[in-house]
């Protein structure tokens, strides 16, 4: 099919060791584990990481990715946030909360957000290439790999940067006003070609990936990573070993792999 995106998609998300899957505060959309599909319209996806110290942050992360993957353009970020906030506030107002939870709801929930949009090849294009756009708030990262070489990382964070307090989106409208003036800094774009790989990762795995790249060539690192994405069980086993060896922070961990096919 001409002017279509042929996408291979895999996603895995696991809670931190000691927590149940229901306590995993990472979220991704579309919520598909593995699929190959063809899209003739722009394809959008999103990953978010809810902050552990706040309440109902799993819900907040899920609302953000659902809104972002549905119909989002970076210019419309305030509207997206407002829509997710309205749903979050609607839910928390609808349940009877003990006093400690009421206080926590007043403090609000927080989460990172990474959104990515891949455009199909234009109708005039003779090559299987196109543009991609991304927006990131916080330390959930995107990596683009072409021919075993890192072509883009967004946001550009070093290993040390992952230990700082990231910017987070809040359910309290007043806490997000700083973002609206710096939208340009939160966005990036690039081009894709058939054969490219995109990896979207929450902070623990992204920090590991940045650290590993410094000592292992991508030609070895990428196949190693992809080989454990065959199933959630395989990914879980591999991640457990990394955590036991203290090679990775014990945190909710999510990876999305997107391969653009010929």
């Amino acid at each position, binding site marked *: 099919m001409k002017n279509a995106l042929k996408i291979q998609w895999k996603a895995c998300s696991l809670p931190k060791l*000691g927590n149940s899957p229901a306590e995993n505060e990472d979220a991704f959309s579309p919520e598909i584990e593995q699929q190959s599909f063809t899209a003739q319209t722009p394809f959008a996806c999103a990953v978010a990481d809810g902050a552990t110290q706040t309440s109902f942050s799993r819900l907040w992360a899920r609302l953000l990715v659902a809104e972002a993957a549905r119909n989002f353009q970076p210019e419309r970020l305030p509207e997206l946030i407002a829509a997710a906030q309205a749903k979050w506030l609607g839910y928390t107002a609808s349940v009877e909360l003990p006093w*400690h*939870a009421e206080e*926590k709801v007043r403090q609000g929930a927080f989460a990172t957000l990474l959104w990515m949009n891949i455009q199909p090849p234009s109708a005039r294009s003779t090559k299987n290439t196109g543009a991609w756009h991304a927006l990131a708030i916080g330390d959930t990262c995107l990596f683009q790999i072409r021919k075993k070489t890192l072509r883009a990382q967004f946001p550009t964070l070093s290993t040390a940067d992952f230990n700082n307090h990231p910017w987070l989106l809040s359910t309290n409208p007043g806490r997000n006003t700083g973002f609206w003036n710096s939208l340009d800094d939160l966005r990036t774009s690039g081009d894709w070609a058939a054969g490219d790989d995109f990896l979207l990762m929450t902070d623990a795995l992204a920090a590991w990936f940045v650290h590993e790249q410094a000592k292992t060539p991508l030609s070895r690192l990428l196949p190693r990573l992809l080989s454990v994405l065959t199933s959630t069980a395989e990914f879980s086993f591999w991640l457990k070993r990394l955590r036991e060896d203290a090679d990775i922070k014990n945190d909710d961990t999510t990876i999305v792999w997107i391969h653009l096919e010929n």
Partner: protein
Amino acid sequence: MAYTAEINRSTPTCFLFLIDHSTSMVDPIMGVPGNPQKARFVADALNKVIQSLVVSASKDVDVRRYYQIGVLGYGFGVTSLLGGDLQGQDLAWIDDIYKNPLRIEERIKKESDGAGGVIEVTRKFPVWVDPVSRGQTPMCAALERAISILIPWVEEHPQSYPPTVINLTDGESNDGDPRIPAETLKSLATADGNTILLTVHASSNQFAQQIFFPYSDADLPDRASRKMFEMSSSLPVQMCRTAQELLGIDLSESAKGLVYNADIAGIVQALEIGTRPGNLR
């Protein structure tokens, strides 16, 4: 590196409060007529701190077992102040603390209306501790009791962030030299560090200078205050950061965990610095 252990349900931490119940605690704070009694103010501040700890352990509709809490009063002997189903327990999990206040009062608070104004709202105020001001100052006995509570605790939680003990007093021990049990208490350790002993001394004199986290005992006015300096632990880095945020003062880890002649704000700030869980996950 010490004092970096993550506080979670697998590796919880412990806060133990020692509250001076001596008769002098009936006097107004800073000695100013009309100010609240020291005992009442300390009890209120402690109730707020416990409330903050419950909220910080709150996750959705549950309270997670991130901490164990103990509150010992010392005046006529040393007694646990926990009530309800927790009566007689030296330490209780934070979710059980949440379920067992002595009562829940409703208090009016002033809050921002979000548009630059201030509104009065009614908020629930759980009370776990009532003021008491009758008796002596058996500080050594209180520290000995803390030791007996924390010896098994550190054995059972070898990987945890170590216990924090906060001693709230307005005076001098009258059952011996508290530096001796304080040294033993501070020697109790997990793999993440030694037990932290902080001293908050409530002021009885409005003209006395408030001294926050001194580096040496040179500016302290008397023998009793210098003893408190020696008793107290050095501040871990996380507490230095919180102190910087709340008080705007730069501190290094050689600052001692002592607030001497604390006024109303000083008591509240010292408690917050001692109990804000920086490593909570």
